[in-house]
């Protein structure tokens, strides 16, 4: 019997939408995704289900460095038996391609951090030259601390007497010396010497001490041009040099100079999550990375006449909040609450309460312009190097010489916009308290006060086993994984196992949203040892160290731990591990790499663009340990991810001989006299 084919109705398929619950673990974000979907506004969460990543690119083995390509060298499912004969047209092997791509990512990340740093340095220079009233040396101690590291004398000899040098002189010379680090013709990166001696020597031995910051990035671009460097090991050497120039150069200078200009953070209390926005206030959201602008906005928002102005527009006041690292910068120094992480940037607008979103550089999704168009929100770009094509976007170029005027202009624009709210305002309730504002100095202070402040207290508790080790957990969100899930699970697993966590970037915001940045969380989430230490010092188990450039603080903290003694001679000796559970940006690769070459075992989540070149992958995951003491690893599963870190920490404890209970040593006189010194 013949069948009759039924005609099938053709219907334009509705675009697939994200499942809000699967997209994020944060209820506030879930609520906003639902709202967006209801309003027909697409967000990054939806786009992630609509567009899958290219599998070849993900593996890092697609080369687009010349127009004979893209050459794609996919790795067969079962791997390759025997010789790997994959080649691009020019003959580039999988290792070459993956390595070139990898270090280009480093170049991208390092340039982002370092350009940020340069920008701060320029502001500092003009402040030192007294060309601006808005910026001043705020933290003299910090200046005196970094000046010598930049070769600037802080004392002078007059008639045989040693005297303190004039601060203005020091500032000017420091600013000039700092500027020099980007492009000086000879010598080496000065801050490399701030690393533990053993590490510096290791770099020297491997020939990777940066010459200046810009040059290393340029050299990467040169070397990865078709037909230049085609030895993955040699390529990685340059990648290493550029990464060091970032972590111990551009980023570190950015952090330090920001501290000098805006003050060194000290623990403070604030809040996080979209719930920090207030319906009856003018909501200005700053997003991006540099504090140069946001500092001014903070200053302007606190002015009585501006607040009055807001009130005159019917608002109760001005609520400033932040996204991404700008959030972290103003949180650390002023306690300004954080609205959300990278993936939440569209959602902040979707509240309908965002009167102005002010952005500068990095991690800004172009789609926020589209979202803003659906609301009254004014999207203001401010940086000459960061503009958007959409017409709705307002560009107010920010110039440090007229910083306050520019800032005021922006704030007033936001206030003026308060009255233009159209759509119903829907701010999620969720917000969590956070204690933030930690830094190398404040940790030291809190470990012993004015008189006995020392990292040794931390070391001692690592040695006695109360603290198992230290983890640096950092980095972005990635729409390919569930928003914030890996961040939170990794951190919780670590603190459960008595590993204290230092956090920066979007991980810090995620932890804050989860309430992990409160001292009270210690007794809930931590193992007994860490809980006890947190209780003693009064700290949260997760310490917020700031923005992405502030990862340099983690490096310096680790250096302090080494210096305090008892845990080896180099960063790679201490029980420490690094992690970026939800990374996405090139900056993360640069950060990861400078951690690795500073001796830290660093595990990334999601994926690494190296899997298509097993030999190269093995090089940075295994062979690097021999070269630098640190190495890469990749583990998408958060619990396993944390366990890998803990295993490494245990390995280091064993090597230090502190893997077993410490005996109580009772000392008699002879023992005391045998003490050194």
């Amino acid at each position, binding site marked *: 019997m013949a069948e009759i084919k039924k005609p099938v109705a053709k219907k334009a398929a509705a675009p697939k939408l994200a499942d809000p619950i699967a997209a994020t673990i944060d209820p506030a974000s879930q609520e906003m995704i639902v709202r967006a979907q209801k309003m027909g506004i697409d967000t990054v969460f939806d786009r992630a289900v609509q567009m899958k990543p290219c599998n070849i690119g993900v593996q890092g083995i697609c080369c687009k460095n010349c127009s004979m390509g893209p050459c794609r060298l996919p790795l067969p499912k079962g791997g390759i038996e025997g010789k790997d004969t994959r080649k691009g047209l020019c003959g580039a092997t999988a290792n070459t391609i993956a390595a070139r791509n990898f270090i280009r990512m480093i170049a991208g990340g390092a340039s982002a951090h370092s350009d940020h740093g340069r920008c701060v340095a320029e502001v500092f220079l003009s402040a030192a030259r007294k060309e601006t009233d808005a910026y001043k040396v705020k933290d003299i101690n910090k200046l005196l601390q970094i000046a010598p590291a930049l070769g600037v004398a802080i004392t002078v000899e007059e008639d045989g007497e040693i005297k303190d040098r004039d601060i203005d002189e020091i500032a000017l010379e420091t600013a000039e010396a700092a500027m020099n680090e980007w492009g000086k013709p000879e010598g080496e990166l000065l801050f490399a010497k701030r690393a533990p001696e053993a590490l510096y020597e290791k770099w020297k031995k491997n020939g990777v001490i940066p010459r200046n910051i810009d040059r290393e990035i340029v050299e990467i671009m040169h070397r990865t041009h078709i037909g230049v460097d085609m030895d993955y090991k040699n390529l990685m050497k340059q990648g290493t040099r550029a990464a060091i120039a970032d972590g111990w150069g551009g980023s570190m200078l950015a952090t330090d100079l920001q501290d000098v200009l805006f003050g060194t953070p000290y623990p403070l209390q604030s809040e996080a999550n979209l719930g920090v926005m207030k319906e009856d206030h003018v909501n200005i959201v700053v997003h991006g990375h540099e504090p140069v602008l946001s500092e001014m906005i903070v200053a302007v928002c606190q002015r009585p006449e501006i607040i009055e102005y807001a009130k005159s527009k019917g608002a109760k006041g001005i609520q400033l909040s932040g996204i991404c690292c700008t959030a972290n910068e103003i949180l650390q120094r002023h306690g300004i609450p954080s609205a959300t992480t990278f993936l939440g940037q569209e959602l902040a607008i979707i509240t309908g309460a965002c009167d102005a979103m002010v952005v500068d550089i990095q991690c800004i999704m172009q789609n926020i312009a589209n979202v803003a168009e659906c609301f009254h929100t004014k999207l203001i770009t401010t940086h000459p190097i960061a503009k958007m094509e959409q017409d709705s976007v307002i560009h107010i170029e920010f110039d440090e010489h007229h910083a306050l005027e520019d800032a005021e202009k922006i704030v007033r624009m936001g206030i003026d916009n308060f009255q233009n709210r159209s759509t119903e305002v829907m701010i999620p309730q969720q917000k969590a308290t956070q204690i933030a504002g930690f830094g190398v100095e404040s940790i030291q202070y809190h470990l012993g006060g004015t008189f006995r402040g020392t990292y040794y207290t931390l070391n001692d508790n690592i040695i006695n086993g109360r603290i198992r080790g230290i983890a640096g957990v950092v980095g972005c969100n990635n729409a390919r994984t569930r928003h914030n899930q890996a961040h939170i699970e990794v951190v919780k697993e670590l603190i459960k196992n008595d590993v204290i966590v230092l956090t920066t970037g979007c991980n810090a915001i995620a932890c804050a949203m989860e309430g992990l940045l409160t001292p009270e969380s210690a007794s809930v989430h931590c193992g007994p040892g860490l809980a006890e230490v947190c209780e003693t010092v009064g700290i949260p188990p997760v310490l917020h160290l700031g923005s992405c450039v502030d990862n340099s603080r983690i490096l310096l903290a680790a250096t302090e731990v080494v210096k305090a003694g008892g845990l080896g001679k180099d960063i790679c000796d201490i029980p420490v591990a690094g992690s970026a559970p939800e990374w996405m940006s090139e900056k993360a690769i640069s950060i990861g790499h400078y951690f690795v070459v500073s001796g830290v075992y660093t595990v990334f989540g999601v994926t690494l663009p190296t899997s298509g070149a097993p030999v190269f992958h093995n090089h940075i995951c295994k062979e690097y340990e021999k070269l630098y003491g640190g190495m890469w690893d990749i583990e998408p599963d958060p619990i396993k991810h944390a366990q890998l870190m803990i295993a490494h920490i245990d390995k280091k404890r064993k090597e230090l001989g502190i893997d077993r209970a410490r005996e*109580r040593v009772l000392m008699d*006189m002879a023992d005391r*006299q045998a003490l050194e010194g």
Partner: protein
Amino acid sequence: MSKLIAFAAIQGGYKVVSATEGLYRKALDTYNADTKIGFPNTAYYLPVIYSLTGMKVETLEDLKKPLEFARGLLPPHIKGKHHLPYLGPLLDAGMAAVFAYEIMEALRILDQPDFYIPEEDPDIEAGKIWVGPADDTILRKRGVEFVDGSAPGFAAVVGAAPTAEIAKDIIEDYQKRSLYMFCAARHNGTSVIEQLISLGVQIGWNTRIVPFGPDISSAVFALGFANRAAMAFGGVQPGDHKKILLYNKDRIFAFVNALGDVGTEWGVAAAGCVNWGFPTLADSDIPEILPTGICTYEHVVANVPVDEICQRSVEVRGLKTIVSDIDIPCAFGPAYEGERVRGADLHCQAGGGKTQCTELVKMAEMNEIEDGKVILDGPDVTDLKKGDTFPLGIYVQVAGREFQPDFEPILERQTHHLVNYIQSIMHIGQRDIAWVRISDAAIEKGFSIKDIGVVLHAKYHQDFGKILDKVQVTLMTNKEDVDKLTARARAEYKTRDERVEKMTDEDVEVFYSCTLCQSFAPNHVCSVSPERTGLCGAYNWMDCKASYEINPTGPNQPIEKGECIDPVLGQWKGVNDFVYKASRGAVTHYNFYSMVIDPMTTCGCCECIAAMLPSCNGVMTVNRDYAGETPCGMKFTTLAGVMGGGASSPGFVGHSKFNITQKKFIKGDGGLHRMVWMPKILKEEIKERIERYGEENGIPGFYDMIADETVGITEEEILPYLQEKGHPALSMPPIIG
């Protein structure tokens, strides 16, 4: 709950600083600003302030700066919820209070110049109890003692003990350890000093009980003393606060005892002391700070019973003081272990075939026995004449949280050498065949049978403190008691022996490793299970277990045997994992019951080595003491050389003599049935057990079937013998699969 302490202490800090500011204002109203101020006879101004900040206080006016400094140190109060970190602030508050206290004392001396008597000893009759800040003369004289070790440290005692007698006990405890007691502050209207005076105890620098002053502020004199010592003896410069405080942490072993209620003012003083690395121990219930760091060990310990406060303090501070010797009239020590008591010198003896002498160690419940109690049931040696014999029962009861009946024989075995350590006493044998000989010299010195108990109690504590808490010893010298004990002991021995004999590998979940030999066989790890005793013959499973309990980081570590991979060959996952790790990856796995397939590794210190004899379809084993050739063509030494070093060498395995007749011996290869050759001495040594094996396994005459060197030392030589005797190995499946 450090937060509570921080909260209270910071409050106290405000209180103390404010009070001092008030006193200061009053003083300025009363005196000229240039009035001289300071402690008597010191070149160090107000010593704490001077040493830590370099500020020299000479006049009333000079007090302004340090007082402002103290005020500046006061941190914000601690919030109840979502507080900021407080350890640093707490220490700063403590320091602020210490500065304030010092200023307070300076003002007191200005106001009441005669309040303190600036001497080494107080004048009790004149009612001058308090000596106040030590002047530089005292400082140097006494400081020398801190440097050369004649004074190991000091206890800063604040408050008062529950009763005067207790105060005296505490203080005597400290005196015994040569510590100084720096006393200050009252509790319930009295102070330790006043309590001691009431009992007529001598106080003053000369008895090391220093009455600093009646208030908590006087405790600052102790810190001033410590800091001056650092400057005078440590050569630390004034103002170098880091060095001064670390000098104190590392070299001045001081601590605080808070006797009484710790209020905010005491609390802030304690916080101040933590800056010096001086911990506080309180007899009351206050929040504790246990993590280490600023102090060497714990910072604040609460609820310490007053009768333990001395011992605990010394431990918490990490101070070693000398423990007194074992209190018996005879000399004691390993030097006397080998000493004999010969006929002419013998005074009397127990055991040795003439009378019964029995030793038994039994576990007891914690509340059943009293630690240190030694009972002598029956006549003592003083009641005996030269040449007498007497029966003796040594019954030791041991209790402890960690104690297990399995440790009984291990402790019992110690009796032999411990009793031998007593000079002029000789001990031979063990269990119910012990023999104790007591010489004239011992009697002359005043030896009593009880001294055996004193020694066992003291040494058990010293050597096995980890696994026991209490030891009580009963010594019996009446025949009927001894006989009763002996009957009981024999039953015990039997059960014990059977327990060891009957225990199987299946019975336990944990085996033990032994890495004693890793020094010369770096890849070797012995695994000891009930049915595979350590291959050196010295350690069985029970010994390893006890050793682990006593020394948890020692050479014997527990191995969770885990999932059984092969019950016949004897392989477990947990053991494999352990071995893999312990051999640093060199050995991935091995079998307990086979010498053919992946046998256990050997370090070369095994008692015997078994080797395959292919043409006899069996195995041989050779013990270390046999130096001759063997049928496998190698002597013991050669075999040990071939096998040693921790490699697994199929066809060979090291084992103990005892293991030969354990049931699992090469069970995977067919068991003892396979044994075709052994050196004669070894064979004879374990004859009885081999014969029993033969009977139990239906091979009558098995003992005679095993060849030895009298039969031959090559396979060719012994094969005919085996055939003639009908050795079971010949009819077994081929040994090489």
